[in-house]
């Protein structure tokens, strides 16, 4: 367009160009515009780079956080195996897992009855009457938009009807586009009500003319999981043939303990929360597992494995599998797996698209692992084999039947379900266990082709992984990930998206990004904010590994000078944290002090990493470190111990928890350290510990340095 621009970078603006001419010479104005454009595009590119790097940080931390879940899981297995039934611990633990489920459905229905729950006159929230109508559901949505809460009576009533309905549904829903124009498919929502409302705003409510599929993970992380469920269930009751809900891996009461849904429900419904949770447990187990459109497009939450067989899935009793991750119930002794907690940290990292690092090395490790599994299986009896597979799979079998065939069938079925809910795609061919998530597998493009072809399907739509643009294709366009929770990691981190699918079965995407604050922020501000958040998260990770870091640094500092080269610093940090991040590039954001001659003082650096809230003083720093490392797991454990869901645990229980954790981790936590800790946080001095207060007290706060990094004042 127009005249050719010279390659010279210098725009020559002669003095006579300025001055008294009323209109600048066309060529000069064009050159000026060009310069500004060139400069601005460079600026935006740098921001984009920063955003990408921030994204990588969040992803790495999230996946390393998944390993925490494995540790928690190991801990429970440990509990199950190390305490005999005579011991009170065992009862506590089995109570925690609700293992005894002797009642029939009819009895449960009586238990969940809402009829005796009265709604007081002072209640200003929405009232529901059944059967539901579109106007009452619209009213419900509006009420939630206005931050109102639905009364427990109506909650239980709605959930009860949902449970009844779900029990009539098959494991796989078959949908046809022939009648309808287009089907809308949404991915993970994770308690982000604002995103769901945004989707309804842009795309309309579900109806007979506008069918929807919601692909799992409705709850956890976000703060409005309950409201999302209620809205989705309400629409399900209203349009049972046009609203399809697939189960996600977060529709699982054990996962909910860890990721916030249990806490949310108990906080919102203090009297009836426990009952609501129990009913939800049943509802989750009755959620269908997959949806198929026009017999060509398969929609399920996580993914597939090389063993996936929709015929098997169609026939199984899905509700028997209440949780995919319940620890083993085993009669025999604990198997050989005594691995310490840290084993899982040794370099097993997600092979996936957005992280740095040495994926080739990891690929080789994974291949080696699967080869070992194969060779390990030879020479065992069927019984041992099953036990081994169960141990690896983590199954708590609902039936007590001893017959080998039953057990085998159960194992096969269970694996089908876990694979669907937990698997992730990888770019290499093959199918290997998903060590990071602790369930399901990584599957490659060859598996996609084989499984889809075998079932005569053309496309797999799944969710389960956050994507920066809200959606992403892989495996030559045969696998599509759709994710609908925007700003998942933090404000500005990612967009959400949904799919519209017509009879031509070609997906069309709509993206969005909720959050009022995002709209008011400029690109620069939102990138800056997300970045700060990511670095804060990184500092927490570093802090949690303080001792290991110092030990590693000392390896490079035999003369104990306290100094280490930047190069060695980067190598050491990666060795300890195993996040696969480009530490040398990140150094400037993480190391405050100047590095003369390319060396830094690591002792200083480690001690500056973070400060704790001033209202607690803990002398014992290793205890503190353990606390940070197992932060989330600790909360889960406390909540499980708090069986009456009061939010309080006694000193005795607190003490027991720590002792158990320390023996499992094979670390040493003295009784005195524990009592000191307990006393220091008994803010009410009433002999019991408020779980929320405890977790709050140890929330890592931003170092003073962060204040100095505040963005410069801007004209905005």
């Amino acid at each position, binding site marked *: *367009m*127009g005249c050719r*621009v010279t*390659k010279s*970078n*210098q*725009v020559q*603006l002669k003095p006579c*160009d*300025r001055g008294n*001419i*009323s*209109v*600048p010479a066309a060529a*000069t*104005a*064009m*050159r*000026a*515009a*060009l*310069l*500004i*454009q*060139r*400069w*601005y*595009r*460079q*600026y*935006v*590119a*740098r921001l*984009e*780079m920063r955003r*990408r*790097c921030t994204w*990588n940080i969040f992803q790495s931390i999230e996946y390393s956080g998944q390993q925490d879940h494995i540790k928690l899981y190991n801990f429970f297995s440990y509990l199950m195996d190390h305490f005999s039934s005579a011991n009170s611990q065992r009862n506590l633990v089995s109570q925690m897992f609700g293992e005894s489920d002797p009642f029939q459905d009819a009895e449960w229905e009586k238990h969940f009855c809402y009829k005796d729950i009265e709604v007081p006159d002072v209640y200003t929230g929405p009232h529901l009457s059944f059967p539901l109508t579109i106007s009452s559901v619209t009213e419900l949505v509006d009420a939630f938009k206005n931050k109102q809460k639905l009364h427990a009576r109506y909650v239980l009533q709605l959930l009860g009807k949902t449970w009844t309905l779900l029990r009539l549904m098959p494991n796989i829903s078959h949908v046809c586009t022939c009648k309808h124009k287009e089907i809308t498919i949404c991915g993970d929502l994770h308690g982000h009500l604002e995103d769901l409302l945004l989707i309804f705003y842009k795309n309309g409510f579900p109806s007979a003319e506008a069918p929807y599929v919601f692909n799992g993970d409705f709850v956890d992380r976000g703060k409005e999981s309950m409201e999302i469920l209620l809205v989705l269930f309400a629409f399900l009751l209203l349009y049972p043939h046009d609203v399809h809900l697939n189960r996600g891996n977060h529709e699982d009461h054990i996962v909910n303990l860890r990721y916030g849904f249990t806490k949310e429900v108990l906080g919102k419904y203090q009297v009836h929360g426990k009952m609501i949770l129990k009913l939800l447990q049943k509802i989750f187990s009755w959620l269908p597992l997959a949806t198929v459109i026009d017999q060509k497009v398969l929609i399920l939450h996580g993914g597939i494995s090389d063993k996936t067989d929709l015929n098997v899935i169609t026939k199984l009793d899905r509700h028997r599998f209440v949780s995919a991750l319940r620890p083993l119930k085993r009669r025999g002794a604990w198997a050989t797996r005594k691995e310490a907690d840290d084993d899982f940290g040794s370099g097993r990292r997600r*092979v996936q*698209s*957005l992280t*740095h690092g040495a*994926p*080739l090395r990891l690929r080789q490790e994974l291949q080696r692992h699967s080869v070992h599994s194969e060779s390990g299986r030879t020479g065992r009896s069927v019984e041992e084999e099953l036990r081994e597979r169960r141990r690896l799979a983590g199954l708590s079998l609902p039936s007590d039947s001893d017959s080998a065939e039953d057990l085998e069938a159960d194992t096969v079925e269970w694996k089908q379900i876990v694979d669907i809910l937990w698997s992730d795609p990888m*770019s290499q061919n093959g199918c290997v266990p998903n060590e990071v998530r602790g369930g399901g597998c990584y599957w490659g493009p060859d598996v996609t082709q084989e499984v889809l072809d075998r079932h005569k399907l053309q496309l797999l739509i799944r969710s389960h992984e956050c994507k920066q643009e809200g959606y992403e294709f892989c495996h030559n366009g045969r696998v599509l990930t759709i994710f609908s929770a925007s700003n998942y990691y933090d404000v500005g981190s990612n967009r959400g998206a949904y799919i519209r699918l017509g009879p031509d079965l070609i997906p069309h995407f709509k993206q969005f990004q909720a959050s009022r604050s995002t709209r008011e922020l*400029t*690109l*620069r501000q939102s990138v800056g904010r997300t970045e700060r958040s990511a670095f804060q998260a990184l500092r927490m990770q570093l802090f949690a590994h303080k001792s290991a870091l110092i030990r590693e640094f000392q390896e490079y500092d035999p003369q104990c000078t306290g100094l280490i080269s930047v190069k060695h610093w980067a190598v050491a940090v990666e060795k300890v944290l195993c996040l696969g991040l*480009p530490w*040398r*590039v990140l150094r400037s954001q993480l190391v405050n002090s100047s590095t003369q001659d390319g060396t830094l003082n690591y002792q200083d650096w480690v001690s500056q990493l973070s400060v704790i809230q001033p209202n607690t003083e803990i002398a014992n720093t290793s205890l503190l470190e353990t606390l940070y490392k197992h932060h989330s797991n600790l909360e889960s454990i406390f909540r499980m111990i708090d069986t009456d869901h009061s939010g309080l645990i006694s000193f005795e229980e607190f003490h027991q928890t720590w002792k158990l954790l320390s023996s499992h981790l094979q670390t040493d936590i003295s009784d005195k350290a524990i009592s000191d800790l307990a006393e220091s946080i008994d803010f009410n001095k009433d002999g019991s510990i408020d779980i929320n207060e405890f977790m709050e007290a140890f929330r890592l706060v931003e170092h003073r340095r962060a204040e100095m990094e505040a963005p*410069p004042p*801007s*004209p*905005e």
Partner: protein
Amino acid sequence: MADKYNAENIITETQKRISNAFDVFDHESNKTVDVREIGTIIRSLGCFPSETDLHDIIAELEEEEPTGFVRYEKFLPTMTKILLERKFRPITEDLLLQAFEVLDQQKKGHLEPEELTKYLTQEGEPFTQEEIDEMLSAAVDPDKNVILYKDFVSMMTFDDTR
């Protein structure tokens, strides 16, 4: 002797930077990036190419039969040369300011959003709607509804020093 050592050092450091930047967009971890990300990568390494410059570079980097991807083994030498020769050098704050002043024909000391929009979406290598919207959101003073370009330029280039 010292010069040679330094020269090698510089090349190694440069190539490391290039490799790091490339890796950020190498989603499949197979040493390729989508050709549409090349502009971002090159710019993030401190270069200020125009769109035309980028077109030329990409033409060099693409395969004989374009696959939509650029391989690292092609990217590295091209990018190394660009960086070592310091092509597409940065636009200084002064120069940027001058450019705004040229557009401010009446010497008001500020620009109206419509004025700037007209220039940037019609002249040179025109902005897309998204680009101009984003720039205006950062540049327009919300009270006066004008672009105080001197302040804008100082603020934006402050970021460079962080």
